[in-house]
């Protein structure tokens, strides 16, 4: 348990069984009144943000978050199955939790999965991944400008803006943190 006076920005706590993070924190002590700890809190499962004020006598549950290394194994319907690098136990992440990150998962990819109790919360994958362009308008020959972009599609259907010189069959590097084009690896 934390005391209210241990609270600070960035601290992860548990409220009603859900993992939460303090996103903003303010110490307040009005006049002759008691110390109050005013927090903005984000529920790490639902993403909901809310305000909560703790009095100094209140206790707050600690939040046990564990992160483990996994290797991507296979897709089973809407689920992505990973195996623990040490125990080979499987972890199953629904595509809803993965969001757009599901498009960047490749065979044998090494990832880190964050758990609260036994519930997977978040996945961290390599910052860059290589993917092949499946569809795009032909590029203008000799135009190597990187600031003029056009739409393209990956084999898995992900839509991405790429520079005008990229062609179908080219392999590009994608920044998995925001899903944007980083650079060209090789021509198709």
């Amino acid at each position, binding site marked *: 348990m934390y005391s209210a006076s241990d609270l600070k920005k960035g601290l992860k706590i548990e409220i009603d069984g859900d993992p939460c993070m303090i996103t903003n924190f303010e110490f307040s002590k*009005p006049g002759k009144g008691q110390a109050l700890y*005013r927090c903005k809190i984000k529920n790490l499962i639902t993403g909901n943000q809310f305000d909560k004020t703790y009095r100094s006598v209140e206790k707050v549950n600690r939040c046990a978050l564990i992160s483990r290394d996994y290797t991507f194994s296979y897709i089973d319907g809407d689920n992505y199955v990973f195996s623990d690098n040490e125990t080979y136990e499987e972890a199953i992440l629904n595509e809803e939790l993965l969001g757009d990150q599901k498009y960047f998962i490749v065979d044998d990819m090494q990832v880190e999965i964050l758990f609260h109790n036994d519930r997977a919360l978040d996945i961290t994958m390599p910052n860059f991944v290589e993917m092949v362009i499946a569809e795009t308008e032909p590029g203008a020959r000799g135009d190597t400008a990187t600031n003029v972009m056009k739409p393209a599609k990956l084999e898995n259907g992900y839509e991405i803006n790429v520079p005008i010189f990229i062609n179908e069959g080219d392999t590009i590097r994608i920044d998995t943190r925001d899903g944007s084009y980083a650079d060209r690896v090789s021509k198709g």
Partner: protein
Amino acid sequence: MQTAFPKVKMPTDSIMLRDALMRRIRAFFYDRDYTEVETPIRLKIPCMELHIDAEPSGDHFLRTSPEIFHKQLLAAGCQRIFEMGKCFRSGELGPLHNPEYTMLEWYQADADYMDILEETRLLISTVWKDVSKQWKILTVSDAFLEFAGWDPAGNYDEDRFDIDLVEKVEPAIKKIGGPVVLKDYPVEAAALSRCRPGDPLRAERWELYMDGVEIANAYSELTDPVEQRLRFEACAQQRIALGKEAYEIDEAFLQALEKMPPSGGIALGVDRLLMLIAEATSLDAVLPFR
């Protein structure tokens, strides 16, 4: 007419600003026939307040306020006294709090909290800027009814009062902007102030907010030693219930109250005032060594 305050770009620049402000404050009180007093920083018995904790210093405590000694000086015949010096409050740290801070404390015999309000208005206008026309005065009851939907006087709930104060009333005061005075606190939050004559639910206490930042707390001082002893005893019980240390009852102070004239008194946070003059939002701007 005062010259402009020096601009604060780096925290160390605030030293010049502090010097300018302290000179003006002292000049203001000297002009008004106040005596500057120096009272002990280390004391045997800290003033007992529910939510103010004293920092131990060997077999003494560091003062949380010079109040106890100032009242003994009033009882000894002093009429107008002021002191500017360091006070210490354990565990108070944040953008608007520092465990060590500079307090301006002053008392006037044969005066009450409204006389002190006039003097404070004059002080701020003299040492900083003319805010006398924007001064807005709200009773605690009116402010709570308007911004939190209930009247704490006669219906006091400490947790609800404190939380609504910081979540609802203070943000509304900040929105009003400029100098705002909250006056006539519920008697349960009277601290060392006396009750309003004919109104046992409310005490003659006010707090001044400048641009939403609380900078001063003033009382018509409680001079009844019997009532003061009862408040200390009740406070000791409440402190024990909160798992805090209960300080001794200060008999010398209670004895002095018997001879103390009716007086108005106030404590003003000098660091916060400096912060506001420097147009900053954290004490970091004016405490270069913290």
